[in-house]
């Protein structure tokens, strides 16, 4: 294992120290391992709390700030945070208008956020609504699985619901916007290499040279199938086809197309992929209304990418274009 770390046991606390040093406009609560917007709680604004296992940076802490999240909870690598963290985050951002929990659909995240919501409502009377993100088309049969995983759409939900909250809209409406974004978004990912969890010290799965794993999530869990490495245009088709056959993307205002890097793939390859994705969409008669290209929801040092398409409408585009001022996404400010 070659990593820029001191002690594998201290990766998250060391990274939080660095995050705080680099971004003085957010507050870091080291004891609870939460990152909170500098001016929280914002009175009268719905608070947005998300969180999950670490290793997906910049998600979630990188998206804390005006126009996006009010707080993020950092779990151990690839492990859901614990309810105490979520309770602390919820209390820190409660400006009297209620708090929205944005939860990626993983068994651990669901159960810990569920416990936290029960605890915070019982002890503090804060109104909490949870929205679950489950956009991964690689998981097909939800009757016999834990359901689709929350992946790329999480970034889009956090941005768009964050903009709705910033407009001062009530909790029910912000939650509805978040649910609509999730229901209009689909993702599919692919790994060229596995990833190495610092505490484990070796790659989570073996992926021989010349093979790639299609349908991966963001935790180094193996995907649905293993195939020989292919050119970018064929890879783009493997990712976009299942998305387009899962939801009708025509007839709206086009799509927000998001090509995401898994951590170790250079931006130049992500642009090669974006070109292929946009050509497939052009052939399918689906205009690209907005785009996002880069590593925004990663899987440590995994090489590979994911594609997320969000069917847009006027409101989604307006909220997408709204100003955002966070460490990892900043524009219009």
């Amino acid at each position, binding site marked *: 294992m070659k990593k820029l770390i001191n002690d594998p046991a201290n990766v998250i606390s060391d990274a939080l120290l660095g995050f705080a040093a680099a971004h003085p406009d957010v507050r870091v609560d080291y004891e609870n391992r939460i990152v909170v917007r500098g001016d929280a709680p914002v009175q009268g604004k719905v608070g947005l709390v998300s969180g999950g*296992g670490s290793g997906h940076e910049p998600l979630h802490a990188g998206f804390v700030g005006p126009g996006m999240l009010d707080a993020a909870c950092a779990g*151990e690598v690839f*492990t859901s945070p*614990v309810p105490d963290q979520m309770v602390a985050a919820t209390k820190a951002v409660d400006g009297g208008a209620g708090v929205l929990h944005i939860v990626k659909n993983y068994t651990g995240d669901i*159960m810990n956020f569920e416990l936290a919501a029960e605890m915070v409502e019982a002890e503090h009377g804060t109104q909490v609504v949870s929205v679950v993100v489950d956009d991964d088309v690689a998981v097909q049969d939800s009757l016999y699985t834990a359901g689709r995983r929350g992946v790329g759409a999480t970034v889009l939900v956090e941005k768009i619901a964050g903009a709705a909250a910033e407009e001062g809209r009530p909790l029910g409406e912000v939650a509805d916007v978040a649910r609509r974004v999730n229901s209009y978004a689909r993702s599919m990912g692919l790994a060229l290499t596995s990833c190495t969890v610092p505490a484990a010290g070796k790659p989570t799965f073996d992926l021989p040279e010349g093979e790639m794993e299609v349908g991966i999530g963001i935790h180094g869990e193996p995907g649905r199938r293993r195939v020989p490495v292919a050119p970018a245009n064929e890879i783009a088709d493997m990712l976009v086809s299942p998305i387009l056959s899962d939801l009708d993307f025509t007839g709206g205002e086009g799509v927000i197309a998001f090509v995401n890097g898994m951590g170790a793939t250079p931006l130049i390859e992500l642009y090669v992929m974006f070109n292929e994705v946009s050509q497939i969409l052009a052939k399918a008669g689906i205009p690209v209304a907005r785009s996002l290209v880069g590593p925004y929801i990663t899987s440590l040092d995994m090489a590979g990418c994911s594609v997320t398409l969000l069917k847009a409408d006027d409101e989604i585009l307006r909220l997408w274009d709204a100003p955002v001022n966070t460490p990892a996404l900043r524009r219009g400010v």
Partner: protein
Amino acid sequence: MDTEALTAWIREFARLISANKAELTELDSAIGDGDHGANMDRGMTAVVSVLDAEPQESPSALFKKVGMTLISKVGGASGPLYGTAFLRMAAAAGDDVDLAKVLRAGLDGVIARGKAEPGDKTMVDALAPAVAALEAGKSVQAAAAAADQGREATIPLVARKGRASYLGERSAGHADPGATSVTLLLAAAATTLGDKA
């Protein structure tokens, strides 16, 4: 079964988790995300520290402390599942602990929190046979053996809960890590409570 004996059970469970951390991680890497050993070890190490600092006065207080500590320290799915199990065990523990009764309450808690059924390739598949053995009046050693058999029976199963379920058919051929850590809980009971049940 007094608080001292039950505390010895919990400490032995912590020791077995630590000793088998690598195996749990190995199993979880095959069908999950490779963190079950590290997470359970972190949680049970915290439990032992808490018990060193504050010895508990009653079985109920002991189980509650274990449950709250696991919920606060473990995260993932196993934190809420083991934590809920111990909180339910605390509620079911009277002055004289009936192991069958408290483990039944724990099992019901795991099922309520995780919504798993037998055969889903989860903790339930090892815990349910152990509880059934105790309820049938068998020894703690027999319950531990039933848990082992339940764990072995998860090997050919296709997972329907948790991250392993994303693998579909590829989850078959590996023992479930959660069922494996449950066998350690029962093995610890067999060595510390075996002559007391």
